């Protein structure tokens, strides 16, 4: 006779769900509005989404306060796990989303933004990512991942160009494969340990001293492949440039930040204990993956003729660079990951937004693609302010001090030095030097060539509106004055990472 299950509401700790529920409620609200009164202007939905995200942000601040006081909180049958990593990554997810959503207020009409579904899906996606990072239960991670990914595929496809459909289908197919790998990997870990919670898995594996090492490795391989797709690590990166090219520039910028931080957090939770287990093989594979990802992506970026594809490869390279933090696996490196990603999100979203405001509806004859290097030739003469801002983002991406990304880069390389990875530190430094070339190439086009476009620079702000310019100004200020915030960020991040046991 089974005893009745007794669950008190308090023990469920439903507060842990609040940050995820806010965007879901917001999404439902948008759908309901559309149900009763369709044909609303997109600005309504943009502002509603922004408000919802703002409330979400405040809720996160609340949980951060609770975390600082009480430490890690579990909830909902111990499925939810609100620790420092969860809070930090949610800050990045929600913050970057808040920067992204006003980009829908373009000058040109892009029809995806006229659908309220776009905004509803967007909010669902955010909830999905939030679930993904706020748990160490492989099933909930999977649910979050798929919620977010399916919404994202649709967002790409809504862009309604041939390339977008191709991109969405490509991303979907690859994503489905990755999901398959993920579930297979989880299955193996479950079979080995009888649990789907990462800390349980770690505990059991440690307790029996990794005796089924063969199976562990198979599980790890599947997990690596799955995260390889999500983080676009070489050799699982092939979808990235095409998908970025197919999606709108703004969404591409978003995709280079938010899905990745979610995947990084899960990878950190999963691989941290595996790396510290002393399994040399795993470390070697991860080391190779990191080095290959940053180097190969850099080399490919060198030969691109389209700025957007170049930025796509560059963001692969950045992801590889940051993946090194997980390989190093110290508190400093894990903090460096968050610092880097926060600074990166400003800069990268800024540079993709610059592409976004220069988006034309139709391509002129001399341009092979939307954002070919040629288009930016001589920009300093026709649109000096825009050119300077773009150059600023490029210099920051290249890691030139004192701009934002330099501080992330420095702290990350420093964590490699302190972690005993001297060679890796040198490889990282040299890769930054290679990367300098392709960022410089755009600067050379903008500042040193003669203009091809003869329309007084209008082309560079074809799509600009006040909200877009505001976002770019915000990103530019963040990029320049990052050094004022680094100390505060570092203190904040380190406390959160350290108190979560990473």
């Amino acid at each position, binding site marked *: 006779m089974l005893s009745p299950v007794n669950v008190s509401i308090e023990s469920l700790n439903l507060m842990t769900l609040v940050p995820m529920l806010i965007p879901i409620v917001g999404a439902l609200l948008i759908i309901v509005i559309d149900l009763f009164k369709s044909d609303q202007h997109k600005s309504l939905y943009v502002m509603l989404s922004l408000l919802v995200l703002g409330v979400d942000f405040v809720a996160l601040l609340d949980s951060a306060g609770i975390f600082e006081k009480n430490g890690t909180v579990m909830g909902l049958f111990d499925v939810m796990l609100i620790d420092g990593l969860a809070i930090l990554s949610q800050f990045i997810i929600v913050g970057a989303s808040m920067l992204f959503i006003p980009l829908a207020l373009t000058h040109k009409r892009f029809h995806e933004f006229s659908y309220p579904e776009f905004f509803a899906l967007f909010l669902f996606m955010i909830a999905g990512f939030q679930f993904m990072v706020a748990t160490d239960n492989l099933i909930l991670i999977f649910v979050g991942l798929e919620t977010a990914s399916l919404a994202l595929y649709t967002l790409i496809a809504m862009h309604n160009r041939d390339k977008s459909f191709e991109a969405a289908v490509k991303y979907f197919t690859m994503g489905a494969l990755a999901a398959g790998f993920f579930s297979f990997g989880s299955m193996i870990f479950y079979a080995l340990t009888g649990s789907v919670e990462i800390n349980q898995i770690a505990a059991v594996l440690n307790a029996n001293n990794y005796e089924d090492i063969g199976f562990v490795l198979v599980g790890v391989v599947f997990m690596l492949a799955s995260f390889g797709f999500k983080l676009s690590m070489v050799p699982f990166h092939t979808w990235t440039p095409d998908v970025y090219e197919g999606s709108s520039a703004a969404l591409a910028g978003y995709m280079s930040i938010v899905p990745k931080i979610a995947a990084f957090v899960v990878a950190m939770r999963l691989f941290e204990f595996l790396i510290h287990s002393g399994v040399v093989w795993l470390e070697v594979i991860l080391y190779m993956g990191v080095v290959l990802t940053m180097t190969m992506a850099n080399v490919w970026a060198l030969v691109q003729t389209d700025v957007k594809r170049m930025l796509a490869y560059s963001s692969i390279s950045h992801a590889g660079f940051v993946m090194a933090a997980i390989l190093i696996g110290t508190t400093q490196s894990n903090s460096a990951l968050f610092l880097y990603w926060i600074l990166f999100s400003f800069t990268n979203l800024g540079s993709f937004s610059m592409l976004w405001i220069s988006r034309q509806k139709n391509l002129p004859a001399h341009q092979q693609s939307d954002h070919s290097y040629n288009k930016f030739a001589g920009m300093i003469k026709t649109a000096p302010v825009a050119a300077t801002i773009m150059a600023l983002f490029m210099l920051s991406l290249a890691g030139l001090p004192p701009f934002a990304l330099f501080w992330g880069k420095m702290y990350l390389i420093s964590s490699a030095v302190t972690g005993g990875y001297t060679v890796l530190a040198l490889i990282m430094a040299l890769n930054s030097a290679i990367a300098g070339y392709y960022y410089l190439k755009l600067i050379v086009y903008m500042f040193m060539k003669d203009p091809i476009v003869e329309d007084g620079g209008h082309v560079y702000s074809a799509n600009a509106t006040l909200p877009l310019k505001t976002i770019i100004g915000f990103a530019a200020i963040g990029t320049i004055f990052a050094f004022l915030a*680094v100390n505060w960020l570092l203190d904040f991040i380190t406390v959160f990472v350290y108190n979560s046991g990473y």
Partner: protein
Amino acid sequence: MLDHILSILIFFPALAAMLGFVVNRESMRSYGIAVAAIEFFLALWLWFAFDSNASGMQFMETIALVPTFGINYIVGVDGISLFIVILAAFFTLIGIASLGETKDIKNMIITLLFLQMTMVGVFVALDAIVFYVFWELSLVPMLYIIGAWGGPLRIYASVKFFLYTFAGSLVMLVGMLFMAYFYYQATGQWSFSILEWYRLILPESFQIWLFVAFFIGFAIKVPMFPFHTWLPYAHGQAPTIGSVILAAILLKMGTYAFIRFSLPLFPDASVYFMYPIAILAIIMIIYTAMVAYAQKDIKQVVAYSSVSHMGVIILGTFALNVEGISGSIFLMIAHGVVSGALFFLVGVIYDRRHTKLMSEFGGLASVMPRYATIFGIMLMASVGLPLTINFVGEFLSLLGFYKQSHILTLLAGTAIIVGAIYMLAAYKKMFFGEVTKEENRNLPDVNKRELVALVPLVIITIWLGIYPKPVLGTINTSVEGVVQLMHEKAISDEAKERIPNLDLIIKRTSAKEAH
């Protein structure tokens, strides 16, 4: 105001550059001259207020930047950096004052003012990261100057310049992070302060690796053989003002950094690498002198001769004694003045004829007597004739190294003869004989605007050649401090022996004690 004079010196030009965007195009040159003049007088004031009997840092300022990670904004000046700062201010001033009819003069002046910020920043930064920030940031305006105003190959040249130095300095950054880590291990505190690093005594094996990491960054900047290949392109393609600033100030960043970082941080490694570096320096001196002789383009002659003289500076630095190091610092200033002037002079002729090929000229002495005279004086200085500024520096550098090795010094000395040969040959080709080309017959002599730049340089060349004491004395005091510190820190017996013990009671004055 003196408490913040260094910060003012750094950020005043930058602020002025920002405001410069608003200034009217026609008034821009006057604006630029005014700003640079104020900056120059501030620099002179710094010299005036400077206590030349103290060997330590003066006018120090500290502001916390990322204290958790040991990064602070620390600036200060000593006898080693003082004159280079003044030189930077001086060259920016005469550079802007002598700017001819350049396209986009507004952008040019704004860029120069930004460049000035980074130059002053590099020489007064006492925190490795702040140093690194200015060091890297200086690449951007220079990239723009070469890339936007340069010759036909300007893009190639500017990108090559940027990437070479960028790659080198990233390796240096790894070295800096290691230093900070060692400091952390020793004290439990992160710190990037150079002065605090000085207190750290590292095992020799660590020193050697760190020395190499820093060396790569510095050597590319100097540029030392075999890392010098970017320089002829950069000089060849840069506009006159770019070459002047590059030769006069930017190259000094590398040699200055050797004295600021490599020597006092790694005394044993400095001794360990003394001979290899000296040999590289001598190759640099002789090889580039020979290459200079083979050039057809007068600007390339000056460019290679400039590299050749940088070799003497390196040699003096790695003499590791007071004569050598003081001499090399003095030679940095001398080289700045003289090669800066030579690049100006090449610019003068290029403005008139739009060619730099020596074969296009001949007999200029009769057409442009004033020009020929100034060129002659500067050329003599460049060759190292006594009573000119270069002689003092070269003599001391070689004297310093003579104490370490007679033969190598002798070899380096021969190069000065080669230097005389190519310089005089070039002078002969351009100035003596009949006027061979019709176009040259009516070339106007140097005008007022050009004299504004050239006459002060001639005066400095001769004045400091005859009476170097006001500058040399101040340099000496600080260098004594550095050498003493190196001796105290040296671990190995060889290093103790090579680096003289001065038995000084060092007055390590800080800003607070000075006031």
